[in-house]
C-alpha cells in the first residue's frame, strides 16, 4: 500500500488550515447564497442558511402527548425549549427511523427534524436556482441543481404557517 496519497492529503489539509490564518481577509466579493444540502427520507432537499438559526445533530427529543402527528416532541437549544416537527411527516413520507439532524427556523423556536446532512453549498445568488415547484409542493420555492442532483429549496415560512394551522386545528379540536 502506498502512503504518499495520505501524506499529500494531510499536507494539503495542514496547508489550507494554516492559510486560513495567514491570508488577508476577503471582504469584498460578489454576494453569495448559502444553502444546506439535506435529505428528507430518501430525497435530497436544500434550505437557505438565512432561514435557520442553527444546525444540530443527535439531540435528545422528549416525546409529548399531542394531537399533532408531525410534532415529535421538545428539545433544549441554547436555553430555549424548542418543539421539534418531523419533515417526513410534514411532507407525507412514510415513518421510519428517528431523524438524527435538527435545524431551528430563524427568528423562532421551532425545530425541524430531517434525516441527512449532505453539506454546505455556496454559490452566487440566483445562479442555477429555478422557480419550478419541487416535490414538497407548497413547502418549496424553487429547485437547486448541482451536477446531476436537483434539490427542492424549502420554504421555511410556509412550513411554519402550516404548523401553526395544524396547531390551531388541534387546539380547536381539543376545545
Amino acid at each position, binding site marked *: 500500500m502506498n502512503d504518499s496519497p495520505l501524506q499529500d*492529503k494531510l499536507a494539503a*489539509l495542514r496547508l489550507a488550515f494554516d492559510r*486560513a490564518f495567514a491570508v488577508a481577509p476577503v471582504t469584498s466579493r460578489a454576494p453569495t447564497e448559502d444553502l444546506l444540502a439535506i435529505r428528507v427520507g430518501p430525497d435530497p432537499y436544500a434550505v437557505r442558511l438565512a432561514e435557520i438559526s442553527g*444546525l444540530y445533530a443527535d439531540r435528545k427529543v422528549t416525546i409529548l402527548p399531542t394531537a399533532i402527528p408531525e410534532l415529535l416532541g421538545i428539545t433544549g437549544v441554547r436555553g430555549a425549549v424548542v418543539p421539534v416537527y418531523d419533515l417526513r411527516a410534514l411532507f407525507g413520507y412514510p415513518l421510519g427511523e428517528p431523524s438524527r439532524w435538527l435545524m431551528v427556523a430563524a427568528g423562532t423556536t421551532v425545530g425541524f427534524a430531517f434525516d441527512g446532512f449532505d453539506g454546505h453549498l455556496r454559490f452566487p445568488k440566483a445562479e442555477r436556482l429555478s422557480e419550478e415547484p419541487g416535490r414538497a409542493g407548497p413547502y418549496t420555492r424553487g429547485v437547486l441543481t448541482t451536477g446531476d442532483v436537483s434539490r427542492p429549496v424549502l420554504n421555511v415560512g410556509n412550513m411554519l404557517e402550516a404548523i401553526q394551522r395544524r396547531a390551531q386545528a388541534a387546539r380547536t379540536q381539543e376545545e
Partner: protein
Amino acid sequence: MTRHWTFGQRLAAGFAVTVVLAIAIGIVSVYALRAVVTSKDSVINVNAHNLTEAERLRATLERKIAAFRGFLLSPEDQYLERMREARSEFLAALARLKGNVITEESRQMIDAVERFEAEHQQVAERLVAQRRRSTAPLDPVAQAFDEQAAPKRDQIDGSIRSFVSLEERLLGQARQASTDTASSAINTTVVIAVIVVLFSVLAAVFLTRTLGRQIGTAVGQVQSSSAELQSAANQQATGAKEQATAMSEITTTITELLATSRQIAESAQRVAQIAEQTAEAARSGEGTVEKAHESIAGIRRQVDQIVSHMLELGKKSQQIGAVLDIVSELAEQTNILAINATIEAAGAGEAGKRFAVVAEEIRKLADRVGGSTKEIRSLIEDVRGAVNTTVMATETGSKTVDVGSRQFSEVAASFKRIAASVATTMEAAREIELSTKQQTSAVEQVNVAIADVAQTTKETEASSSQTLQTASQLATLSKDLMRVIQPQHAV
C-alpha cells in the same frame, strides 16, 4: 440263574450232586454197618460172653463139687485147696457176669445163683468140718451130702440153666435185631443207590442236552465267525494288495513332494532376502517421510503465525476505524460549529464578516477532513477486506497443511506398517524356510516309514493268506465238532 452257568460249572454241579449222593450212600452204609457191628458186638460181647461165663460157672462148679467129693472121700487138704480155687474162679466168673448182664431178669438169676452157691458153700463147709472132725464112717457124711449138698447143687444148676436159656433167648433176639438192622441198612442203601442212579441219569441227560445245546450254539457261532473270518481275510488280502499299490504311488508322490519342499525352501530363502531389502527401503522411506512431516509442521507453525499477525492486523484496522470514527465525528461537529458560526456571523452584520470568513475556512477544512476520513475509511475497509481474505486464505492453507500433515502422518504410519509387515514377512519367510527344511527331513523319514509300511503290507498279505487257511481249517473243525455233538444237524 442256571442259564448263565458255564460248561465247567454245570459239569461241576452234576458231579457235585453225584458226589453228595455218593457221600450220603457212604454215610448210610457206614451207619448201617456200624449198627450191624454194634449188634454183632452186643451179641458177641454180652450174650455169647454171658453164655461162655455161664459154661465157666458150670465147669468151676463141677470142679468145686468134685474137689468137695474128693475131700469127703479122702479128707485131704489138697481137695480143700482145689475146692477153694474152684470157688474163687466161680465167684470171679459170677462177678464178671454180674457186671456184664444188662437185663434185670438176668441180674436176678445171677443173684439166685450167687445165693444158692452161698447156701451150698455153707453146707459144704459144715460137711467139711464134720468130715475133718470125726473119723467116723463116711456114710453119714455121704448121706448128709446127698440130702443137703446135692439139692443146693441142683438149685445152682437149675439157676445156671435158666440163666443159660435166658441168655440163649436174648442171644437169639440180639441176632434177630442185628439181622433186622443189617437188612434195614441194606434197603436204605439200595434205595439211595437207586435215587443216585436216577439222579445221575437225569443229570447226565440234562447236562448232555444243555451242553449239547450250548456247544452247538457255540459251534454255530464258530462256523459263522470262521465264515466271516474267511471273508475278512479275503478282504484283508485284497486290501493289502491295494495298499501295496497305494504305497508305491505314495512313495512316488513323496519323492515329488521332497523335490517340491526343497524348491519351496530355496524360494523362501529368496523371499527372506527380498523382504530384508524391502525393509531397508521402508526404513529409508520412513526417515524421508519423517523429515517431510517435520517440514510440514514448520510450515504449519509459520502459517499459524501469519494467521495470528493477520488477525492482529485486523484488530489494528478496527482500532484505526474507531479512531477514524472519532475524527469523522470531530469533523462533523466542526462543520456544524462552522455552519452555526456562519449563521451567527451573518446575524452580526458587517462586524461578523471577518468571523464568517474564518468560519468558512474552518468549515471547508472540516469538509475536507470529512472527505479524507471517508477516503481513509474506504482504504481501511479495503485493508480489512484484504486482511479477511488473507486470513481466510491462510486458514484454508492451514487446513490444507493440516490435511497434508495428517496425510503425511498416515503415510508415515503406512511406512511403519509396511516396515512391520515386511519384518513379519521376513520372519515368516525364515520360518517357512526352516519349516520347509524340517518338512523335508520329515518327508524323508516318512519315505523310510512308507517303505517299512510297504514291507509290513506284504507281510500282512502273507498273514492274510495264513489267516484264510486257518479260518478254513476252523470251519472244517467246527463242522466236525457239530457232527460229533448233533449228528442230525450236521451238514
